[in-house]
């Protein structure tokens, strides 16, 4: 029995971690939606949703309910299996990168304060002691892998399937066009994104996300946004394109394509796409934060709290979320202010401007790093 | 306990076989291309398994090169298929019989 428990323990921890993280992320996402509507309203001199709950705080839940109870229409000549698969793929791929993000610094000893409280209790006491021992040096990451950056990029690139398949399986012209455009766009900008990341990776000397953050600690001037400013800008632009946000929301350009790849989707399946888009925004923001803004690192915090202590971790975590929120605000802000590109402009911009710039940045970084290390 | 080297090789062999048979059975150029990709992947598995067995990077580097090659092949191969499609409106290899005598 004990043996089984011990074997199962890591899986339990990971499951709990995944649940927590996903729950948190979904909450953030839900409120991003609300925030977007509010902020857009504010920018456009409107009020935004304000009926459900005080100041409209419960609006996301109302929306959810509405989605659930709506009639689920399935186009007659669609390819059913793929049609159902597509939204799931989209959301899964959007959520998966969360697994590797470091949400905060390592906590040296998170549970040992509990031990005195339960010391006398049979079974539970022993268990807590054992768990506390296991939990030492606990990272605030679900899965620490060596190749975090590649993992994120890989999963993001797989995300294209959701959109492409959705467009194809609906058996509708508009959907197909939207799907095609969107996949073309995502493939194109993925390159620029990957290239822009290389600079930061080179400076950090690792593909491990935590390692990248570590490389930026000690001073805000070590944040890669400074040496890698070009990379940052490129990444940001590419991130907008990757998430199909304004000004790159060609796939769902209403005036041309009705609603793009999800024209034929309704109810819960549409909700999945909708969520996927916002989760994508979130994950891309996290990535940007990690790569260029020092992740959870708060300058000067180590003077206040001991590194590795619980409060240090908590504050860092909150700061991390804060940085992400800033990015999310940026998304909304830009949506409120910029018009949409034309498709050929978008492609030209991606291939003829963004990618060369990103590559130039890589070369520049190589040269600088080489010269500095001579 | 880990599965033995032999089982990885068996898996790779089976995948290779499936891919190879697929190339023969498919009529569709893209399908054939995908079967070939499957074969390459089976080979990659062999490399990685041996790399693990010998504790050596050689196999994994080889896999990396194979992936690059596969990407190049995909770019060019799909280009060829599109060019063929433009002229014949089909990607069926059995339609490619202009020169059989």
């Amino acid at each position, binding site marked *: 029995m004990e043996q089984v428990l011990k074997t199962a323990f890591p899986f339990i921890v990971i499951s709990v971690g995944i649940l927590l993280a996903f729950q948190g992320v979904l909450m953030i996402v839900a409120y991003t939606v609300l925030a977007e509507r509010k902020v857009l309203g504010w920018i456009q001199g409107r009020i935004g949703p304000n009926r459900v709950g005080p100041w409209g705080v419960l609006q996301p839940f109302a929306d959810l309910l509405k989605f659930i109870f709506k009639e689920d229409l399935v186009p007659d000549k669609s*390819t059913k299996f793929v049609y159902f698969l597509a939204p799931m793929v989209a959301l899964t791929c959007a959520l998966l990168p969360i697994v590797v993000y470091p949400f905060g610094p390592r906590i040296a000893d998170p549970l040992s304060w509990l031990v005195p409280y339960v010391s006398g209790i049979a079974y539970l006491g022993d268990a807590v002691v054992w768990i506390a021992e296991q939990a030492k040096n606990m990272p605030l990451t679900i899965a620490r892998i060596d*190749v975090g950056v590649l993992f994120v990029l*890989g999963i993001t*690139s*797989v995300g*294209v*399937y959701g959109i*492409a398949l959705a467009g*194809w*399986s609906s058996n509708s012209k508009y959907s*197909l066009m939207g799907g*095609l455009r969107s996949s073309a766009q995502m493939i194109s900008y993925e390159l620029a994104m990957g290239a822009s990341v290389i600079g930061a990776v080179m400076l950090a000397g*690792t*593909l491990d996300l935590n390692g990248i953050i570590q490389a930026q600690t000690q001073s805000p001037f070590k944040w890669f946004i400074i040496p890698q400013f070009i990379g940052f800008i490129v990444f940001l632009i590419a991130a907008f394109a990757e998430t199909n946000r304004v000004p790159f929301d060609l796939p769902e350009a209403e005036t041309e394509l009705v609603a793009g790849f999800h024209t034929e989707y309704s109810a819960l399946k549409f909700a999945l796409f909708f969520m996927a888009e916002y989760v994508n925004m979130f994950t891309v923001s996290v990535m940007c934060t990690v790569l260029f803004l020092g992740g959870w690192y708060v300058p000067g915090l180590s003077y206040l709290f001991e590194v590795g202590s619980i409060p240090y971790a908590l504050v860092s975590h909150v700061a991390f979320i804060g940085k992400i929120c800033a990015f999310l605000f940026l998304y909304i802000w830009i949506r409120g202010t910029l018009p949409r590109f034309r498709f050929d402009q978008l492609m030209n911009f991606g291939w003829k401007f963004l990618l060369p710039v990103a590559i130039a940045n890589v070369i520049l970084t190589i040269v600088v790093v080489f010269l500095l290390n001579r | 306990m*880990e*599965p033995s*080297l*032999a089982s990885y090789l*068996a*898996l790779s062999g*089976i*995948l*290779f*076989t*499936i*891919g*190879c048979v*697929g190339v*023969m*059975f498919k*009529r569709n150029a*893209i*399908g054939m291309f995908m079967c070939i*990709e*499957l074969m390459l*992947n089976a080979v*990659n*598995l062999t490399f*990685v398994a041996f*790399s*693990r*067995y010998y504790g050596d*990077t050689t*196999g*994994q*580097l080889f896999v*990396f*090169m194979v*992936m*690059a090659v596969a990407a*190049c092949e*995909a770019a*060019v191969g*799909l*280009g060829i*298929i*599109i060019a063929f499609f433009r002229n014949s409106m089909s*990607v*069926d290899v*059995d339609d490619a019989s202009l020169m059989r005598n």
Partner: protein
Amino acid sequence: MVGTALFFLFAGLAIACAISMVYHRNPIYSAISLVGVFVALSCIYVTLAAPFIAAVQILIYAGAIMVLVVFVIMLLNLDEDRPHSRLHYLYALGGGLGVLLLAQTFFIFYSVMRAPNLPADQTVSPGETMSIGRAMYTEYLLPVEIVGIMLLMAVIGGVILVRKLNAPQLELVVEKELELRNEEEAKDGLGIAL
């Protein structure tokens, strides 16, 4: 124990997806199945202590190559293959080849099982990014350079092949004229009459 279970899980998934890929006549289903194989293999790579290769597998195969394939399938709007039978000798050939390769697989399995199977050295981790990167830029520097040239070439090749012709329809008309002109030019040619 867990390793074995995971292996059989993903191996089963891979084989099932592979068979499904061959079985389906609809190219999109085939493509999705193939992505399934890639993902399963990627997981197996992780169990083989090769996280870098696993990530790259997803990034390149699933994220780049197959996306391109799906893209092309969508672009050409391909339907299911025609069902009627093709050249029968190809089926026979395929079957024969399959049996042969399967036999070969058994042979490999048998001969590796029989050989002394020294267990993998757990201390070295060849799959880590660090060691791969080190190898890539020292021992394998030349191959990496070659790959660079190859990628460049593939880009050129892809672009030439897919780029639209200037005036495909007109060409047929112009062709005759060109030929006439060629033949006129030929008359005052370099040809030496014996």
